[in-house]
C-alpha cells in the first residue's frame, strides 16, 4: 500500500468514524441522561457523576413498556410486510403489463410521496371512523399502507432493470407471471426488499400523529405516543422519559442484533450476481 493509498484509507476511515460518533451521540446522551438524577439532568457530563437507577424504577412502576413495545412492534411488522407485498405487486405490474394510464399511475405515486401527512389526517380519520376502525389495530395500520409509494417507485426501477430476456425465457418455458415474480424476480431483489422492509418498519415504528389521533391514551397506544406522557403541563420529566426511551428501544435493538447476520447476508446475497 502506497503512502497515498494509506492516507486515503485513513481519511475515509476517519470520516466514517466521525459520522458514527455524530450519529451515536444523541443515543449515548439519552442513555446517559436516563441514569442522571433530577439535579444533574442538564449537567454536561457524558458519564453521570452520581448514577442512579431511580428513573428506571419509577418508569417500570408506572409506564406500560411491554404493552407499548408489543403494540408498536405488531403494527410496524404488519405495516412493513403488507407495504412490501403491495410494493412488489405494484412494481411488477407496472413494469410487465403495458396499460393505458401507466405513466399517470407512476406520476401519481411520485406525487403521493410529497403530500404532507398532516393534510391527510382528517380524511383518513373520517374514513377510519366510517369503517369502524377507531381504536383498533387495523385502524392504526391500514392508512399507513398507503405510504408504500416510495417502495413502488424504488422497486419499479429495479424490476425494470431486470434482464427482460430472462423473464421472457421463463415465460417461454411455461412459467406464469406468479412463478416469474415469486421464483425469479423476488429472490433476486432480496437486498433491496430487506432494505425497504427495514425502512418501512422504522417509519411505522416512529409514526406519531396518526396513532395519537386514532388510539391515544388507550390500550392500543404506541411507543411514540406513550413517550409523550412525560411531557406534561407540570414540566417535562427528562430522566424518566430517557429511561422509558431506552427501555422501549432495547427490544428492537436486541432483535436487530440477533437478526443482523441474516439481514447483512440478505444485503450481500445477490449483489455479486
Amino acid at each position, binding site marked *: 500500500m502506497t503512502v497515498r493509498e494509506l492516507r486515503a484509507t485513513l481519511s475515509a476511515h476517519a470520516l466514517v468514524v466521525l459520522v458514527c460518533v455524530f450519529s451515536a451521540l444523541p443515543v449515548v446522551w439519552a442513555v446517559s441522561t436516563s441514569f442522571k438524577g433530577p439535579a444533574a439532568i442538564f449537567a454536561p457530563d457524558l458519564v453521570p457523576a452520581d448514577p442512579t437507577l431511580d428513573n428506571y424504577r419509577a418508569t417500570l412502576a*408506572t409506564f406500560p413498556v411491554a404493552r407499548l413495545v408489543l403494540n408498536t412492534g405488531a403494527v410496524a411488522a404488519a405495516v412493513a410486510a403488507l407495504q412490501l*407485498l403491495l410494493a412488489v*405487486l405494484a412494481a411488477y405490474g407496472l413494469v410487465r403489463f403495458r396499460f393505458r394510464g401507466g405513466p399517470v399511475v407512476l406520476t401519481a405515486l411520485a406525487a403521493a410521496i410529497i403530500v404532507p401527512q398532516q393534510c391527510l389526517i382528517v380524511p383518513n380519520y373520517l374514513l377510519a371512523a366510517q369503517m369502524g376502525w377507531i381504536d383498533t*389495530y*387495523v385502524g392504526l395500520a391500514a392508512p399507513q399502507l398507503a405510504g408504500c409509494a416510495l417502495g413502488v417507485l424504488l422497486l419499479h426501477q429495479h424490476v425494470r432493470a431486470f434482464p427482460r430476456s430472462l423473464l421472457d425465457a421463463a415465460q417461454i418455458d411455461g412459467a406464469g407471471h406468479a412463478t416469474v415474480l*415469486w421464483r425469479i424476480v423476488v429472490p433476486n431483489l432480496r437486498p433491496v426488499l430487506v432494505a425497504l422492509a427495514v425502512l418501512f418498519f422504522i417509519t411505522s415504528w416512529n409514526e406519531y400523529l396518526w396513532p395519537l389521533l386514532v388510539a391515544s*391514551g*388507550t390500550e392500543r397506544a404506541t411507543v411514540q405516543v406513550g413517550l409523550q406522557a412525560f411531557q406534561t403541563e*407540570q414540566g417535562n*420529566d427528562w430522566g424518566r422519559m430517557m429511561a422509558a426511551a431506552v427501555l422501549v428501544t432495547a427490544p428492537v435493538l436486541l432483535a436487530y442484533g440477533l437478526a443482523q447476520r441474516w439481514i447483512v447476508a440478505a444485503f450481500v446475497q445477490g449483489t455479486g450476481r
Partner: protein
Amino acid sequence: MVVVRMLGRHGLVMLVVVALAAGCGAGGEAADGGDGSQTPGAGTQQDAAEPITITWESYNYGTQGLGGEGTQRLLDAFAEQHPDIRVEPVGTPAGEIHTSVQAKAAAGDPPEVAQIGWSKFAFAQENLPLVPVQEIAPPGEWEAHVAGFSEQALAIGEADGQIVAMPYAVSTPTLFYNADLLRQAGLDPDAPPETWDEVRSAALQLVERTDAEGVYLAAANAAKSDFITQSLINSNGGRLLAEDGTAAFDGPEAVEALAMTQDLTESGAQPRIADDEAVALFRAGRLGMYLTSTALLAGFQEAATDGDWELRTAGMPAFGAQPVRVTNSGGGLFVLTDDPEEQAAAWEFVRFLTSDEAFTILATTIGYLPLRPAAVDDPDQLGSYLEENPALLPAIAQLDELEPYQDMPGPDGARARELLQDEAVAPIMLDGADPTATLSAVADRVDELLAP
C-alpha cells in the same frame, strides 16, 4: 384480472395477507383481555341499569406524574358518586388536543367533553361544534353552581355574553423562591422582592454570594405559551392586542416590559438558558427565584422535600408602583354534544370537575387554582390544607385582578403566537435582540397573519 388470478393460484400469498390482518385483529382481542385489565365499568355496561357513557378528552389524563395522578383521582371520585354515568377518558397532549377534537368532530364523533387550553379558545369557537356550557345546565342549576365561582375566573370562559367553556385547570404566574438560598445570600425570605427592580438586585446578590443562579422568567418556553409575556405586558400598562384585534405588543409599555427581561439576562441576574433547564436548576436547589405557572407547584414541593430546601411563593412582581395584572394559563371544559341525555351527563361531570371537592383535589395534587373562594375558606376542603401549605395563596390573591387571556384569533392565530414567542420574546430575553425593532417587526408579521 391477472393479479387476481395470480393471487388465486398462490394461496400462500393470500394466507400471508389474511394472517397479518388476522394478527391485527387477534392483537386487538389480546389487548382487551391479555393483561386482565379492563376499562373501569366496562363489564357492567350490559347490567340492568345501563349507565350513560360520555368521553372526556383531556391533556392531563394519562400523563406520567402529578397531572395524570390528580386527574385519575378526579375520575375515581366522580365514578364513585355517579355510578349512572361512565366517563371514558382519552389523553391527548395539550398541543394537539384541539386538532384531535376537530378531526373527531368532522367524523361526527367528538368527545362529549374536552379540556382545551385557553390559547385555543378562539380556534374552538371558530372550528368546533361547541354547545355553550351555560346552555346545558338545567334551569336553576347554573346560577346555583356559579354562585360560588370567582367572577374574574368565570369571565375567562365568556364569549358573546355567555359562558362557553367552564374554567377548570387555571393557573397564574407565581414567583417561586428558594428561602434557604435567599438566606445564604443575606436576603430576607419573609420579605421577597415585590418589584422587578427588587428582583434584579436580589438576583444579583444571589449570584454574587451563593453558587446558585439568580432568577428566571418562564416567558420564553418550549410550550410557546405567552401567558407570562401577556402578564408582564399587562402589568406595565400595555396590551397584547388592541381593541380592533391588531398587534399592540410593539407599544412602549410592552417594549419596556420585555426590555426588563433582557436587562435581567444582560446584567447576569438571569442565566442565559432554556426554560426546561431552569426548571431542573430550580428543582435541584440551584436557582434562587423562578417565575412560572402554579401548575408546577406540586412538582417543586416534591423536589424541595427530596432536596431538603424550603420552597416559598410570592405574587408576580410589579413594575414600580403599577398594579400587577396577571393573566391565566391552563384550560377550560368544552361541551360538544347535541344529545340531551349526553348533555345532562356532561353537565353533571362538568359540575363535579368544577366543584369545591374537585378544586381541592386539583389544588393539592397539581397546583391548579381553586376557582371557588368557598373551597379556599372551607376547613373541610382547602382551608386547613392552605393553612399548612400556603404556597398557593399568593396566586389565589392574584385572581381578584385577573385579566382574561387574550388569544390570537383566526386560522393563523397559533402561528402568530409562536412567532411572538420564538422571534420576539426569546431573542429579546436571551439573545440580546433590540426590543423596539424586534417587537415592531414581529407585530407587522402578526398583523398580516391575523388580518381577516
